[in-house]
């Protein structure tokens, strides 16, 4: 085990995959000369050169679309969007092109491409730089959608994403970039579509994504002191969704709380709750619950923003209401 920052785990994954496969390249805004807005590609430009690590103009639709063209012609592009909010600028190329071309071609084409995009609030970045787009993207068929939690997931899932022959949207949480995690180097790849039980427990299942996994674990620590045993399931992947792990856990605990930072309405909690309902309904001891960001644009002031986004305190409070 060694300690590593989340951002360096991303950078290591990119570096190792680029070294392994000459068809992997990175493009996006500020990825080359300064090593990424969040410093997730430091040193790669110097190591792999201008053609493989490409600073693009601010043309999100243009360079996401170029990624599609590259992927159709033998390359494996990793396209970085500086903020997941910018996916909306490139939505046609990501959703109508990248995700649908294989289907529209009747299986002739594959689009082995990764879009990396940071999600999440907490930086006083206001309504256009703080959103979590995993629910919106998951609405559309044709893409895999990953929400890594720790540096281990960030590295192992990104490497799997780059090797996957399908389009993958890879959401990194911007509040985790500077955080340090223990990483086990004997785990090289994390399979896409497998949830991970980060903490075993008996009283309630907390199914969480991305940064909310760490918040759920903190909440579980606090709740243990009150005698509540939480099972924390790190979903890791929204598409494909590991239903079996969630269902098995809920059958054991009898309660399910879903925690995700995207907007609540039509969100991840709504989908997962409904998705497993038929399988767990008769095992439930309480209604399925969710914690998400309420449907307001993310505000700027910390005094307004922090009460809005999910937190360990909110998780503790909700679990208490469900279990005590």
């Amino acid at each position, binding site marked *: 085990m060694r300690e590593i920052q989340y951002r360096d785990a991303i950078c290591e994954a990119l570096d190792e995959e680029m070294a392994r496969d000459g068809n992997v*390249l990175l493009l996006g805004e500020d990825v080359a000369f300064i090593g990424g807005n969040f410093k997730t590609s430091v040193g790669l430009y110097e190591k792999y050169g201008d*053609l*493989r690590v490409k600073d*693009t*103009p601010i*043309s999100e*639709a*243009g*360079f*996401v*679309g*170029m*990624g*599609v*063209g*590259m*992927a*159709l*012609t*033998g*390359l494996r*592009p990793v396209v970085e969007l500086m903020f997941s909010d910018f996916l909306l600028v490139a939505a*046609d*190329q990501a959703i*109508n*092109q990248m995700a649908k*071309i*294989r*289907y*529209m*071609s*009747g*299986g*002739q*084409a*594959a689009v082995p491409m990764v879009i990396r995009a940071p999600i999440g609030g907490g930086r006083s970045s206001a309504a256009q730089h703080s959103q979590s787009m995993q629910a919106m993207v998951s609405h559309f*068929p*044709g893409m*895999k959608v990953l929400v890594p939690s720790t540096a281990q997931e960030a590295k192992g899932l990104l490497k799997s994403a780059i090797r*996957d*022959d*399908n389009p993958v949207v890879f959401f990194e949480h911007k509040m985790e970039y500077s955080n340090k995690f223990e990483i086990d180097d004997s785990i090289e790849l994390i399979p896409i579509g497998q949830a991970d039980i980060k903490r075993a427990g008996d009283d309630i299942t907390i199914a969480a994504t991305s940064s909310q996994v760490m918040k759920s674990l903190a909440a579980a620590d606090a709740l243990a002191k009150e005698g509540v045993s939480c099972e924390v399931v790190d979903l890791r992947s929204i598409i494909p969704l590991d239903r079996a792990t969630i269902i098995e856990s809920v059958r054991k605990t009898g309660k399910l709380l879903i925690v995700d930072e995207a907007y609540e309405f039509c969100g991840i909690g709504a989908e997962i709750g409904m998705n497993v309902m038929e399988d767990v309904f008769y095992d439930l001891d309480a209604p399925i619950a969710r914690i998400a960001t309420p449907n307001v644009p993310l505000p700027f002031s910390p005094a307004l923003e922090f009460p809005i986004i999910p937190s360990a305190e909110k998780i503790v409070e909700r679990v208490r209401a469900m279990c005590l």
Partner: protein
Amino acid sequence: MAKKLTKAQRLGFYETMYRMRRFEEEVFEFYKRGAMPGLAHLYLGQEAVATGVCAALNADDYIGSSHRGHGHLVARGADLGKMMAEILGKETGYSHGKGGSMHIMALDKGILGANGIVGGEIPIATGAAYSAVYRGTKQVAVSFFGDSATNEGTFHESINMAAAWKLPCLYVIENNLYGISVDIRDVTNTENLADRAKGYGIPGIVCDGMDVEAVYAAAEEAVAWARRGKGPTIIECKTYRWQGHHVGDPGDYRMRRDGKEKEKWMKKCPVAGFRKKLLKDGFPESMILALEAKADAEVRAAAAFAEDSPYPDAPEAFTDIFV
């Protein structure tokens, strides 16, 4: 300066344009008989553009095609039966009926997909051009799109990047004057759309899109430029579509500026005009008739194949989403 065309090349141009014409007429017949699901955007009238441009390409070059894309496929030698079957939504179509007229992909012919989103193919073709540079090949990519796509952001974003990085890409504007019913002259203050090339610091060529030899000359020049590593070119082909936006649109709105507009353009028919030219240049009519008979038979066979083919089974809808 363009090389003198050989007799075989000129006959080939005619044969391709005639095949395209007949194919689209057959598609229109299916529509009129109610045998075609949905709609199709016919290439009738624009045959010289796809024929001239594709004649300047190699077999391994790439094409990003548009919703009006049947002509590009025919010009690349795509299988007419599989095309027609796709247009009719049949199992034997290029995409097993999942794409239809607007999305016929023939990857083996370098067709990276036809696009239902105006301007959607422009960045994709640009990425293919980047890929060619990356892999160190001499391939070029061509993006075909209509006049209206030049007002999409993807046009600007893509050409800006292709120019900055000298990518081997041709941007072919098929200026048929209308985006559905809207006259490009009413929404754009640029007489020649290729003039926008100046803004990107790249060559822009305006050519007669009803003259296959003129289109070929422009494309040949742009392809040579691209293969020499000089970067992209915008080629604007002035052309016209015989039908409205799609098979169900008579396109009468085009008469508001000039009641004889369509009539005038039809006098410049690229197929009939080139046939006349070949005869004048001494090609025996028997030779032309033989080519026509061959193309007629090919199109009839494609239509029969498509019509006789089964529809896909309903579970087919759930395949080909992921690898």
